[in-house]
Each structure stands twice: as C-alpha cells, then as structure tokens.
C-alpha cells in the first residue's frame, strides 16, 4: 500500500463554504442604486461570522446573495466550490434547499402544523426519504433543546422556543452554512441570550454560521465580525 492510497482527510481539501469575489448588486432605477459595492468575502468551514451595519447599509442584499435568493449583478460567488453564477434558477433552488439553512427574525413557522411537522417540512423539497424525516426532525429538535415540545403548535411556544424550532428546521437538512437574519430581532434580551448560547454551542460542534444583526451584543459573540457601511464591507479584527 503506497502512501497515495491513504484516504486524504476531507477537511484539507474541502473548498471554503463561501467565497465571494467582486460581488456587487445594482438595483435598476433612475438613478440605479448600487446596494452592494464590489465585495470579497471568504467563509471557511467552521467559521462563525457576524455581518453588522445600520439599516439600509446593504446587509440584507448581501444575505440574499449569500442565500441564493438573489443574483449578484457582477462577480463570482462560489458555494462549497460550486460557481453559483453558472447555475439555472432551478439548480440554485435545489442547492439552496440542501446547502443553506435559514433562520429569520419573524421565525416563519406554520401556525397550523406541530413543531415536529414544521421541522420535517424543511426536507420535503430536497429529496430526503419520507420515512427518515420525522426521525431527523426529532433529532434536530433534541439538539436545540425542544425535545419536550414535539407535538405542540407554534402558537403555544414562547418566542425563544419558536426561534429554536426555526433553528432546528434550518439544521435538519445538514446545511453547509446557517444564515441567520436578525435572529434575535423579535426576542427580549434574556431569550436572545439563550439563542446566542445555542449558536455558540452549534459552532463548537463544527457548524458554520453567518449571523446578520444590528445588535452589537449579538455580533460580539462571533469569531469574525464584518461591518457594512453604504454597501462597503470591512472586516473588523477581533
């Protein structure tokens, strides 16, 4: 057996989770608005990055491009080494379902479904086998500490529990990155703290996280902090 036959550890050769080069976004209009100026950003596997800035600074634009919800006007965006610019809309949608877990400010839980159904919902569009879904949803809910609320409906949950349910939904498809858009925007400081601790814990387990927030307490928890002002990105040294 030669040295070459030894399987190489994947981590050494895996591409960055996200790599943005010269990405910008111009919204058509009179005059056209450049919401995001040409930007470079690299997110490695296991990074915990926060993106912060005042409202209107371009955070959301960046989030949408990163989340494949919007296309950049120019530049190259590689997700797990895949050039997303070359993909059709349907392919981008498929990639989004498998690689990106979203967490929203408003939770976006379906009121008429139970907690476990809400989490299982995340797997119906990415080809997960039907019989595994509930099991995996349960596991994800255990992971965020909601194992005792499986059959509740979201209306009976507290704000913090709703957000944890949404996080479980984002985790259930084993995404490459968790994209959180103002995850604590609707929560009080105490429940915010719970959510942030959960993020810390997930990060320590190896999850890649990108949190968009205007709350300095939240952004301070991240390992890397990126500030956007008027569409320009600047990484702060922590």
């Amino acid at each position: 057996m030669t040295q070459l036959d030894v399987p190489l550890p994947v981590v050494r050769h895996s591409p960055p989770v996200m790599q943005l080069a010269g990405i910008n976004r111009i919204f058509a209009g009179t005059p056209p608005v450049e919401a995001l100026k040409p930007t470079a950003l690299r997110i490695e596997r296991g990074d915990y990055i926060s993106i912060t800035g005042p409202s209107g600074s371009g955070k959301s634009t960046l989030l949408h491009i990163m989340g494949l919800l919007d296309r950049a006007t120019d530049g190259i965006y590689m997700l797990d080494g895949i050039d997303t610019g070359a993909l059709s809309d349907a392919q981008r949608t498929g990639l989004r379902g498998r690689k990106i877990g979203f967490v929203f400010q408003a939770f976006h839980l379906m009121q008429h479904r139970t907690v476990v159904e809400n989490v299982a919902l995340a797997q119906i569009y990415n080809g997960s086998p039907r019989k595994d879904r509930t099991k995996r949803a349960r596991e994800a809910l255990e992971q965020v500490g909601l194992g005792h609320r499986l059959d509740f409906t979201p209306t009976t949950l507290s704000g913090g529990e709703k957000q944890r349910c949404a996080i479980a939904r984002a985790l259930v498809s084993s995404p490459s990155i968790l994209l959180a858009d103002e995850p604590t925007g609707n929560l009080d400081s105490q429940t915010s703290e719970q959510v942030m601790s959960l993020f810390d814990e997930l990060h320590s387990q190896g999850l890649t996280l990108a949190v968009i927030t205007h709350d300095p307490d939240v952004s301070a928890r991240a390992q890397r902090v990126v500030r956007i002002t008027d569409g320009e990105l600047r990484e702060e040294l922590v």
Partner: protein
Amino acid sequence: MSAPPDQIVDPTSFPMFDPADNKISKPQFSLRDLLAESVAGLLARPGRLALTALGTVLGIAALVATLGITETAGGQVSEIFSELDATVVTAQPDGGGGFGFGNNTPSTIPFDAERRLLRINGVNAAGTKSSVDTGASLVRALPVTNSRNGAGFNLDVLAGSPGLLDAVKGTLREGRWFDHGHNDRADPVAILGPAAAERLEITRVDNLPTVFIGELPFSVLGIIDDVVREPDMLSAVIIPDLTARQMFDLAAPREVIIDTQLGAARQVGQAVSLTLDPVDFTRIRTRVPPETTVGESIEDSIRSLLLILGGVSLLVGALGIANVTLVSVLERRSEIGLRRSLGAAKRHIASQFLLESTATGLLGGLIGATLGLITIVVVAAYQDWTPILASWLPFAAVGLGAVIGLLSGLYPSLRAARIEPIAALRGTG
C-alpha cells in the same frame, strides 16, 4: 486502514464537506408530498374552505338538479296518455327466424318467466298467459249444478302463472287466485272469469265447486271480478301453467304480461327479451308503450333558463374560488417565501396552490352533485315520479367541479409562484 492521527479531523456532530454532496440537481418534490401539503393547506382553514366551495356546490347542484328533473319529467307519462297503457309491457316469442345463432329454433318463454322478470328493476308484477288447446273439450260444471244440460260449454281455457292477476290488475269477486304451490304441484285447480262463472252457474267457491274440462275435474278456487287488461280472461277458465303442461301438453307459455312502474316501461322492455332468452334475445318480441311523455310539456325555455342559472352560479363559484385563493396567496406570502428558502421551486409553489383550488372545486362538485341528486329524488317523490338520471351525470358533475377549481386556481397560483422570497421573508408572520 485509517488516516494518520495528525490528519484526523476533530470529531463533531456536523459532517464535514462531502464532495458527493456537491451534485448539482434540481429540487425534488414528490407527488405524495405535494398532495399532503395541499390538503394540509386547505384543512388549516376549514371554514374558509367551506365558504369557498359553496359557490361551486350551488352551481353543480343546480345543474344536476335541472338536468335530472327534466330527464325525470321527460320519462313520466302524461296524464292524457293513460297510465294503464304506459305501464304494460308484453312479450312473445318471435315466430320468424332472427339473425342470431340458433335462429332455426323458435324461442320459447320459460315456465319460470314470472320469477325471472320480477328481478328486473321497475317491474311491479309479471305473469304468463297462454291459451290451452284442450282438443275441443267442453267445459261443464257438476251435473247437479247444471240446470240446463250436461253437455257443457265451449269456453276458452287459459293457462296462467300465479302473478297473472296482478299483472293484468285484476280483482277477484270470490275466493282466491292459485299460488306457486298449486302451480308447482300441477294441482287441478281453476279460476273462472265472471262470464264463464255465470254460464256455469257458479256463484260461490266456499263449497269448492268442481268444473270438468273434458273429463278432467278441476276445483274452482276463485271467480274474477274484473281485469283491467287482457279482457279475454273474463270469459275463460284459467288453470295454472304447470297444470296445463301436465294435462294438456302445454309446451311453453305463449305470452308474458308485465305491469311496470310508471315511466319505467321502456327501460323494462329493453331488459325483458334478454331475461327471457339469454341465448338469443332477438327471438323474443317485446311490445312497449309508445313514447308519449310529459317531456314536451316542460318548456324548453324553462329548462334553458335553469341551465343558465346553474351556469351563472358556477361562474360565480369559480370567481369565488379564484378570489379566495388569491387572497390566501397574499396572506401566505411568508409561507411561500419560507418554502422557497427551503428549496421549493416556483413550479412547486404553483402546483401546490393549483392543487388546493382543484381540491376545493372537487369538494364543491361532490357536495353539489349529492345535493342535486337529493333534490331530484325529493321532487320525484313529491310528484310521484320515478327518478331517472343518466348514470354518468353525477360523475361528470364532480369532474366539472374539479375543472372549475383548476381553472380558477391558474391565475392565483401563477401569482404565488412569482412572489419573491426576499420580500416575503421580511414580513412578520
């Protein structure tokens, strides 16, 4: 064989990058998931579902009821045309060769024709009737009761089945008609027509009078008062079929007489020949009443008016579904955004809403067709009509409901597919 220790990745609960996972594929959404999501979407708001389906329910019900009632009325007999004639079907073997196989053997009516015919829907009563060749035997009563002479009378002898009296709507003045027991045992019993009874001078049967056909004695069971059909029975001596077979070599009944429910005669007529001669039904000739119905008396304009009304309510129903689906699309923007973020393609969103509106229309069609059928039955019962309805109509009505739902859902589901996830996710909800 494993990697050198210094290269082992820190064990975590999150799997590391796997190039196999980088396969670029379109999102998948199984039909079963699509159905489950649509049904769940509908059942989340049951009250709204009921109200949305209401327009279709009314429209479909109106259409089914209109078509059914006109068809039912069309099948009923007008009052001018006698009910009596309209409810009789007769059948005889066709003497001429048919074009089926075995056309050289003339068909015969089976001795159990009555039992067979009673199984046809719409048959009230059935009986066989044959004239019996007694070899010119005279009929006479006991010499003691015959005050004129013992020579007897040249009376017609008929053979009949137990149901014949009901089939000709006859009544008895005295005694009873023979039953299946008499027939099956070939008992020597007879029924007298009133004219025959008068000539034989028999007025009562409680003393079991006997008549002789030729030399054979028969006990008189009853005397006919009147019959509505087949008046030749009034002057005849009637004996059971099987008695006639045993004593006078009757080969087969010659004719069947069937009393049907009002409006059912033509349908019964179609079934009779096949029932009597399954081998070659062309060998049986049936006579059914001519089609003179109240159909003409129901004004075509009223019928069209009702149909137009049904159509209008369907249109309103369709607009209702379209409207509510559109509202629901706008209300569920965040759900749509969420699904898109979870990897749903535009067509998945569109098909879910399309299926929801189709299911709403289908439900409306089901309930509407049911209500329409109930209406037909109630109206028919009230008018003493036999409800008649083309069997495909309810199914077509349900299908029409689904098609209406589908068409109504086209525009809203296109709108749903066009909703941008970005905008939708920013909203609260």
